[in-house]
C-alpha cells in the first residue's frame, strides 16, 4: 500500500495501450459532442422546429411561409449581423469544446487512476487501483454508433466512480484490461495463454492523445468498423472458457419479464378499470389511467432490451457481466468484491424453475446517480444449472459436493421435505410457525467454507450467501414476542444493495451460536483473505488449504 516507489512504472507483461505510463492523456476528440449529446439534439430540434416551413419549401417548392425568424432578419437588413453572430456563436462553441477537451485529461499509474476536468471549475478525481470495486465498460447507443465507449472505475462509497468518457471503443477495451492487470497486483508476466492473438494482429497499440482509432481512415472503412463493433458480442475474446457462459434463450427472458409482479399489478389495474367503466363511472378514469397502461409497454420494452444478449463469464481478472441490445454495458467484478449474493425465485417463476441472482457490491451507487452501467443483477433469469455456474464464478472456492448440496437444499429444500435426509441447515423450531406460518420450515442457516448461508421464504424463495471475509458485522435481537416464543432474529451487516441478509426467526440458543460463529468467522476469514490484489502471488492461506 505505502510502497516508496508509488509512482514507479510497474513492469507489466504486455500492456495493450500506452495509456498506463503515468503521463496525462486526452480522451476521444468527440467527447464534448458526445457528452453534450442531448443538448445538441435539442438545439438542432429547436432550429428545425423554427424553420420547418422554410425547409418544407426547400424540398417541395411551395411558398406558404411568412414571418419566420429568417424573414424578419432579412426584412430588417440585418443579414450581416446575423451571420456574424452565428459565426461568433459557432466559434465560441468550438473554442469551449476544444478547451474542455484540452482540460479533460486522465492518467493511469501503477497505483491510481486520476481524471482532471473542467475549464473554470476544475475537478480532480482519483481512484486507488487496489480499492477498485469494478470496472464497467458502457456503450450508450449514440456514442456506440460513433465507436466510443465509457470506462467507469467504481470505487467504494456513494457516487464514487471515476469516469473516462469517452474513449475509442477498442482503446477502452484494452485500457480496461490494463487497469485490471495493474489492480490485480500482478508484477510479473502472466502466461500468454490468455492473450488471444486475434486482436493483436488487427490493432496495433494506440499511442498518446490521438485516441480515435479510425479518425484518418476512409469513410467506408469507418462504417465497416462501426458495423463490426456493433455486431460483435460485448464479451471480448479474452474472456475465459466459453462453457462457463450462461445463455438465456430470448423466450425465457421475455417470459421472465412478463411473469413479474408488475404484470400482476397491471392486470389488477386493468380489471379495476373495466369494472369501473361497466359500473358506469365517468370516462375521465379511462383518460387518466390509459396513458399509464400504454407507458407500461415501454417498461417491458426497456427491460427486455436491457437484458437481451446477457452474458457472464469468468476472466482472470474477475467475473464479467455483459448485457444490452442497443446501449450495451459490460461490467468486470474483480475477485472478492462481492459482499452478498441472493438467489431468489418469485412465485410466478416456480413452475418454470427459474431463478434470479443479485449481488451487493461496495461500488454500487445507491439512489440518485444510478447509471444503468452498474447492475446488481448478475443473472436475470436462469435454471438451477445456470445458478450453479454463476455461483461458481462468484464464489470460486465454494464448489465442493457439500457446497453444491448446501446450495441445492437452500434453494429447494426445507425441514419438512427432507425429514429423513441430512439437510445441512440449522432450521427454525416449529414454534416459529406463530410468526412465520408459511415459511418457518424453510427458515434456516448454515456456515461452510467461509460463507454464511441463509435460507428463507416460501412465496418468494430466497437463498442468501455472505462471504464472511466481506461481512461488516453481526447483530442478534429479540423483542417481547420472540422472547415469549424463545426465538430471536439475526442480521448480517453487509454493504448496501438489494440483498439484506437477515434471518427473522431463530431459536434463542442457536442465535447465540450463530453470533459467535459469525463474529469469529468474520475475523478469521478476513485475515486469510488476500483477494484485494488477487494475482499477487502469496503463500496460500491456511483456510484455502483446509478447504481443499
Amino acid at each position, binding site marked *: 500500500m505505502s510502497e516508496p516507489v508509488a509512482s514507479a512504472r510497474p513492469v507489466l507483461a504486455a500492456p495493450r495501450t500506452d495509456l498506463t505510463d503515468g503521463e496525462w492523456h486526452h480522451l476521444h476528440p468527440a467527447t464534448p459532442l458526445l457528452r453534450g449529446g442531448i443538448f445538441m439534439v435539442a438545439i438542432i430540434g429547436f432550429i428545425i422546429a423554427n424553420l420547418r416551413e422554410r425547409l418544407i419549401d426547400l424540398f417541395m417548392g411551395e411558398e406558404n411561409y411568412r414571418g419566420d425568424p429568417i424573414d424578419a432578419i432579412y426584412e430588417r437588413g440585418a443579414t450581416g449581423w446575423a451571420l456574424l453572430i452565428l459565426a461568433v456563436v459557432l466559434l465560441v462553441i468550438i473554442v469551449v469544446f476544444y478547451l474542455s477537451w484540452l482540460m479533460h485529461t486522465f492518467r493511469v499509474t501503477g497505483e491510481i487512476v486520476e481524471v482532471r476536468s473542467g475549464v473554470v471549475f476544475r475537478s480532480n478525481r482519483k481512484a486507488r487501483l487496489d480499492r477498485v470495486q469494478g470496472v464497467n465498460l458502457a456503450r450508450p447507443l449514440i456514442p456506440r454508433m460513433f465507436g466510443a465507449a465509457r470506462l467507469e472505475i467504481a470505487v*467504494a462509497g456513494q457516487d464514487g466512480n471515476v469516469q473516462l468518457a469517452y474513449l475509442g471503443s477498442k482503446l477502452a477495451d484494452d485500457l480496461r484490461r490494463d487497469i485490471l492487470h495493474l489492480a490485480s497486483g500482478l508484477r510479473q508476466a502472466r502466461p500468454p495463454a490468455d492473450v488471444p492473438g486475434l486482436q493483436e494482429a488487427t490493432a496495433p497499440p494506440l499511442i498518446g492523445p490521438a485516441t480515435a482509432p479510425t479518425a484518418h481512415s476512409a469513410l467506408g472503412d469507418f462504417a465497416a468498423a462501426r458495423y463490426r463493433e456493433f455486431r460483435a458480442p460485448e464479451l471480448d475474446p479474452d474472456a475465459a472458457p466459453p462453457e462457463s457462459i450462461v445463455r438465456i434463450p430470448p423466450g425465457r427472458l421475455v417470459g421472465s419479464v412478463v411473469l413479474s409482479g408488475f404484470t400482476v399489478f397491471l392486470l389488477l389495474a386493468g380489471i379495476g378499470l373495466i369494472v369501473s367503466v361497466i359500473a358506469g363511472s365517468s370516462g375521465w378514469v379511462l383518460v387518466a389511467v390509459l396513458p399509464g397502461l400504454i407507458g407500461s409497454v415501454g417498461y417491458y420494452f426497456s427491460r427486455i432490451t436491457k437484458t437481451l444478449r446477457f452474458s457472464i463469464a469468468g476472466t482472470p481478472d474477475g467475473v464479467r457481466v455483459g448485457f444490452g441490445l442497443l446501449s450495451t454495458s459490460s461490467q468486470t467484478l474483480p475477485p472478492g468484491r462481492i459482499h452478498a449474493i441472493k438467489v431468489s425465485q418469485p412465485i410466478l417463476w416456480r413452475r418454470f424453475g427459474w431463478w434470479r441472482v443479485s449481488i451487493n457490491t*461496495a461500488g454500487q451507487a445507491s439512489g440518485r446517480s444510478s447509471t444503468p452501467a452498474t447492475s446488481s443483477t448478475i443473472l436475470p433469469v436462469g435454471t438451477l444449472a445456470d445458478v450453479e455456474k454463476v455461483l461458481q464464478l462468484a464464489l470460486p472456492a465454494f464448489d465442493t459436493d457439500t457446497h453444491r448440496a448446501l446450495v441445492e437444499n437452500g434453494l429447494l429444500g426445507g425441514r419438512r421435505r427432507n425429514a429423513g435426509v*441430512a439437510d445441512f441447515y440449522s432450521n427454525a423450531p416449529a414454534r416459529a410457525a406463530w410468526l412465520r406460518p408459511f415459511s418457518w420450515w424453510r427458515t434456516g442457516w448454515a456456515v*461452510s467454507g467461509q460463507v454464511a448461508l441463509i435460507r428463507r421464504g416460501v412465496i418468494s424463495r430466497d437463498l442468501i450467501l455472505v462471504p464472511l471475509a466481506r461481512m461488516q*458485522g453481526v*447483530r442478534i*435481537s*429479540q423483542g417481547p414476542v420472540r422472547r415469549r416464543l424463545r426465538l430471536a432474529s439475526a442480521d448480517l*451487516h453487509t454493504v448496501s444493495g438489494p440483498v439484506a441478509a437477515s434471518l427473522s426467526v431463530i431459536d434463542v440458543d442457536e442465535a447465540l451460536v450463530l*453470533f459467535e460463529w459469525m463474529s469469529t468467522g468474520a475475523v478469521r476469514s478476513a485475515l486469510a483473505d488476500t483477494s484485494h490484489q488477487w494475482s499477487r502471488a502469496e503463500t496460500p492461506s491456511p483456510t484455502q488449504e483446509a478447504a481443499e
Partner: protein
Amino acid sequence: MPELPEVNPPAARPPVRHDVAEPAARLELAEAGEWMRVSPKYVLVEIVGTIVNAVVVCGGASLLWLLLDATWAFWVGLAVLVVSIINLVFEPRRVRSIGYLLREDDLLFRRGILFQRFVAVPYGRMQLIDITRGPIARWLGLADLKFVTAAATAGVSIPGLAEADAEGLRDRLVELAESRRAGL
C-alpha cells in the same frame, strides 16, 4: 471460541438445559466477560430528551384539542404522555443495559431490556469513528461515539461516554483497527 466446522450439522444445536424448570428465553451472551457500562449521568440526557419530546407533542396535541376542538388530538396527547411516563420510569434501567466490550478481534455492543440487541463488529471493518456531543451531554461532559463500517446499517453507536473515555476509546479502536485492517 468455537471452531468453524466444514458444515454446521443440525446436531450442533446446543443442548436445551433441562435441569432448569423454565429454559432461558432471554438472549444472554454467557462467557462474554465483563461489560463496560456507560456513564450513569447519561440517564439525565435521555430523561431530558424524553421530556422535551413529550412536551412538544403534548403541547401540539392540546393546541389542536383546545383551539380546533379535535377530540382525537386529546387521545393522541394522552397516549404520548403515558408512554413518556413509562419511558421515564424505565430510563435508568435502560441506560444500565447499554454496554460494550472490547474483545480480542471485535467490538461487542448491547442495549435494551424489552427489545434486546447484541452487535459484534470486527475492528478491521472500521471506516471511521465519529464523536458527537449534544448540548446536554456537553454540559454533563459526555460524548457519543460511533463506530462506522461500510455496511448500510450503522455499525455501533455507544452513547454517554465521559469525554476523556470517548477519546481514549477512539484512539484505542483506531489503533486496533490499524493492526487488523481488511481491504474493502
